[in-house]
């Protein structure tokens, strides 16, 4: 950033590319949510694509913030990454238990 608080052309291009990449992964994850055949497969789309999508958006936004704001953004991404992977596992476990119960009731 220069003295007037404006981003250089290179920083603007890099930031825009990262934001567009993040948007691409969010859109791909959302399409995966709609297209994938079962709830377990949909979890793949949400956890993987959205984690990287948010990472790219955070990296793109870091061009605009100061050190403290960037540290907080990075922490938010790490928290989302951790909570995403743990909640994916918990949701999958719950869905599998439900599925097994339904199958047991049928037999």
């Amino acid at each position, binding site marked *: 950033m220069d003295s007037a608080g404006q981003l250089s052309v290179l920083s603007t291009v890099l930031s825009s590319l990262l934001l567009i990449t993040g948007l691409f992964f969010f859109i791909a994850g959302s399409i995966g949510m709609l297209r994938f055949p079962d709830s377990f497969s949909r979890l793949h789309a949400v956890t993987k694509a959205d*984690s990287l999508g948010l990472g790219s958006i955070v990296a793109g936004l870091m061009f605009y913030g100061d050190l403290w704001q960037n540290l907080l953004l990075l922490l938010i991404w790490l*928290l989302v990454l951790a909570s995403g992977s743990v909640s994916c596992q918990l949701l999958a476990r719950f869905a599998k238990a439900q599925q097994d119960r339904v199958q047991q009731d049928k037999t």
Partner: protein
Amino acid sequence: MSLSQSGAVVICYSAISGIFALCWAALTGGRGWWFFLPLCLLLLLWCNLAKLSLPPVRFNAVPGFLLFFSRQLVLGAWDVAKRALSPAPRWAPQWQPYSISLTQAASQRLLASMVSLLPGTCAVNIEVGQPDVLLLHVLDSNTDWHKAVAALEQQLAWLLRDETAKGQTA
């Protein structure tokens, strides 16, 4: 408890408090520290009662692990994006068991959580047995998912001090 053990405990709880403080700063934008302090003390008490602590790590293995994990994160997202956007369905979901060679319960849970960010795999449950088995949901059973999970497990074995990497002695 010897002096060195007490020192290790103090360092461990200081590190945990630091992590809590960073999480609080990230979630609240650095506000409400007067509320955080008693909450932090309660959380530390809970960690002490539940015998929770940070796993000891080999610091020289950290850069390699971060590089490996970042690469897998990008590959995983790219893989799922490609499948989601391809005109023809490119998935063949299946349940697959994976025999875990990590011995500690905490390491196994870490593996189960991280597997969900790897290309094409999602952990569901750890079934205790001989050996312990990780039940995985695989997005495409035709891919070499086993190799990727084994590579992550190997990286974790290198990273965590309580584990012994394959081909090494304790």
